[in-house]
């Protein structure tokens, strides 16, 4: 053979690269954005039939690296080698035809299209004149073959998050992806959906595909990964084999220090009812019943957790309390005053604070800087003003103080906040809301998409607020988070509270059943 004629070292290298059969090799990838190096000489590879986890803190460059592999971003330096040939992807189209498929962190689906229309988008193999009936039939068969259940005829806006994700995966399989990249696929799934997803991707790996999974959840890495690559601040710090994977080591590699999680329940919950909902009902965006006869209360110094699958009324609940959504019947009381029908401004004056689900849309103004965003709720107040003008000096003082004490990492106080990482955005938002010294804090999915370190920090902040006697309504889809923080847990399913349980009696399975809509436990 050829290898025999070559010097021993080269021959060894050649043999290795031939036998390892990498589907993908990324070599020395560098990508700079204005002011940040998102990837700094990163090396990464995917083998046939493996599940490769990609780990790293927020902003460590995971999505950037995978966007480069999928042709969305052009690398500044480095090589992309697919099946042994060097490739330059000018657009996602090239990457797709090279067999790379990516399910993005924020789904790239067209809501007003049907599932089938989304799947066939960009496919030039189908006839120019569309026969949707036939396409839908073929897709139904395809999805059956992969065990991914989708209904090709339904409209995307009607789908649940889990279904949307299946559509995203089918989209890529339909285009013949040999390498499937999933960017934080489990961030928005229920435990059951996550299990199903993992079964599916194991199946796909078995059929010879290479799978890349980005996640922040270390137990998931232990569960499914054959190899793990850890990124830290844009560098690839290590790649571990299956038998080397353990949580402590991974956490240490990711953040460069040990992570300790501790959780203290409130030993002396208050008795004062801060928030009371009585038989509250409202409509959702589609004009259908969103909340049905919701009744519960939250006391001072208590974290009341709302568990449930996203889309079961969580957003409506938060909006109703904050006065952003009209209620049809029932009443809401804060500190004993009936505040039904109050506007958000009146709610602010009542001492209610909201950390909304949609950080960059509802919570903060993406194109404004840190100062503007932090004084959004205060600018009216006497102390911020000089006559009709804003006292920028005072504003700046206050903002720098907050940024310091909440440890928000900003490049400058004026730079648009949309450039901040997810963790920093959330800190900023909490800084604004907590600094208003609220009596009631509503936090919706406060750690969604955040890395372990940022998650810990946010949890610390919430628990600190509870110590100070604030009543906290915590809405989350992460059961571990709910169980860890809450004093009492209400389960929301299909717009109704199916049960309220005290957290020392909480059992994940029982909550899971309640989440599926089985009313059981009586209110405490």
């Amino acid at each position, binding site marked *: 053979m050829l290898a025999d004629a070559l010097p021993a070292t080269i021959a060894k290298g050649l043999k290795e690269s031939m036998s390892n059969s990498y589907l993908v090799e990324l070599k020395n990838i560098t990508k700079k*954005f204005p002011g940040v190096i998102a990837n700094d000489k990163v090396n990464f590879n995917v083998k046939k039939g493996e599940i490769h986890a990609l780990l790293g803190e927020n902003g460590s460059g995971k999505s950037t690296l995978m966007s480069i592999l999928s042709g*969305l971003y052009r690398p500044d330096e480095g090589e992309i080698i697919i099946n042994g040939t060097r490739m330059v992807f000018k657009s*996602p189209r090239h990457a797709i035809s090279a067999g790379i498929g990516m399910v993005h962190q924020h789904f790239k689906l067209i809501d007003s*299209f049907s599932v089938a229309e989304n799947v066939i*988008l960009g496919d030039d193999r189908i006839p120019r004149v569309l026969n949707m009936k036939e396409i839908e039939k073929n897709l139904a068969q395809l999805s059956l073959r992969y065990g991914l259940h989708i209904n090709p005829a339904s409209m995307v806006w009607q789908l649940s998050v889990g279904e949307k994700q299946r559509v995203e995966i089918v*989209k890529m399989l339909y*285009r013949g992806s040999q390498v499937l990249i999933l960017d934080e696929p489990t961030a928005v799934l229920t435990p059951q959906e996550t299990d199903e997803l993992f079964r599916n991707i194991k199946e796909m790996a078995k059929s010879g595909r290479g799978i890349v999974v980005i996640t922040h959840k270390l137990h998931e890495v232990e569960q499914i990964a054959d190899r793990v690559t850890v990124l830290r601040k844009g560098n690839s710090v290590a790649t571990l084999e299956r038998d080397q994977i353990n949580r402590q080591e991974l956490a240490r590699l990711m953040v460069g220090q040990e992570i300790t999680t501790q959780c203290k329940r409130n030993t002396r919950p208050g008795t004062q009812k801060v928030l009371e909902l009585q038989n509250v009902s409202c409509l959702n965006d589609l004009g259908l019943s969103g909340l049905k006869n919701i009744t519960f209360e939250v006391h001072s110094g208590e974290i009341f957790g709302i568990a449930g699958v996203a889309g079961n009324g969580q957003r409506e609940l938060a909006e109703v309390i904050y006065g952003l959504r009209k209620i049809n019947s029932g009443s809401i009381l804060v500190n004993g005053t009936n505040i039904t029908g109050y506007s958000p401004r009146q709610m602010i004056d009542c001492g209610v604070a909201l950390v909304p689900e949609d950080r960059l849309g509802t919570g903060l103004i993406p194109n404004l800087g840190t100062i503007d965003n932090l004084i959004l709720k205060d600018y009216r107040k006497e102390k911020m003003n000089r006559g009709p003008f804003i006292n920028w000096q005072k504003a700046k003082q206050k903002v720098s103080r907050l940024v310091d004490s909440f440890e928000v990492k900003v490049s400058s106080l004026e730079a648009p906040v949309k450039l901040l990482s997810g963790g920093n955005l959330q800190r900023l938002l909490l800084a604004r809301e907590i600094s208003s010294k609220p009596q009631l804090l509503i936090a919706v999915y406060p750690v969604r998409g955040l890395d372990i370190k940022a998650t810990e920090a946010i949890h610390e902040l919430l628990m600190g607020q509870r110590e100070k006697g604030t009543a906290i309504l915590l809405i989350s889809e992460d059961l571990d988070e709910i169980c860890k923080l809450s004093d009492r847990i209400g389960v929301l399913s299909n717009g109704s509270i199916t049960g309220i349980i005290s957290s020392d009696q909480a059992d994940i399975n029982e909550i899971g059943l309640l989440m599926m809509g089985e009313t059981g436990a009586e209110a405490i």
Partner: protein
Amino acid sequence: MNHDIFIAILATAVTAGTPILYAALGEILTERAGILNLGVEGMMLVGAVCGFIIALNTANPWYGILIAMLAGGAVALIHALLTITLKANQVVSGLALTMFGTGLSGYIGKSYVGMPLPAPFHKIALPGLSNIPVIGPVFFNQDPMVYLSYILVAALWFLTFKTRSGLHLRAVGENPAAADSMGVNAFQIRYIYVVIGGMLAGIGGAYLSLYYVPSWMENITAGRGWIAVALVIFATWNPVNALWGSYLFGGIDALGFRLQTLNVNVSPYFLKMLPYIFTVVVLVLVTKRNMVKRIGSPQALGLPYDREER
């Protein structure tokens, strides 16, 4: 009003609506691709003047139409360059285009004002179809450009809703990032449809100067480009709705014209105002309907797309 006058008004409604129809079809395609082009009025004017000059000098209205089409497309290309490549604000660029087109057409056409056109289009009665009572004389005793617009409406409807290209067009207008990630070339598609939109606006303008008037005068469109923009919303971005929508506007135009010749005692200024009042009223009603039925504009309308933007 007797039967003949009634038919005549309806037939004039079709003729009066046709320039608006062409422009609206163009704007529908443009907006379907996610680009708002408020320069319709300007593109129509440039089309009208270029078409007129060429038709006058070649004595062939078809050359006029061809050049009007190219001129409209060329003006639209400026908008495409500004908004797609340079990501300028689409409203500002569109408004600038209208002002530019108004000025440019006035300048080019200065020495042609009021000249009569020797060989404009003529009406052709379609054998068979034109004998159908009412429908026949109204729709099938018209000039070739009207017939062409019928074909265009059907073709564009089919393109938009039944073909692969139409799917890609709509995808780019709804969510260019999603389309791009699936390998649809969002930039290319936006360029193509913005230019086609300009071409159709150019044809619409030329129809005014080559058939409807037929002569050149400054600001010959008199706001029809803006009516076309409003019509797009009225038509809920659907070519077929644009057809009868523009005839509705044409009808009001024609009615005002007729009332004047019939010596009805209404202020001519009021009659001239009618189509615009109608536009405002219709826009209010339709927007309300669209809100109830949740028919919206293409989701990404007016937003520039940048692949590497956060």
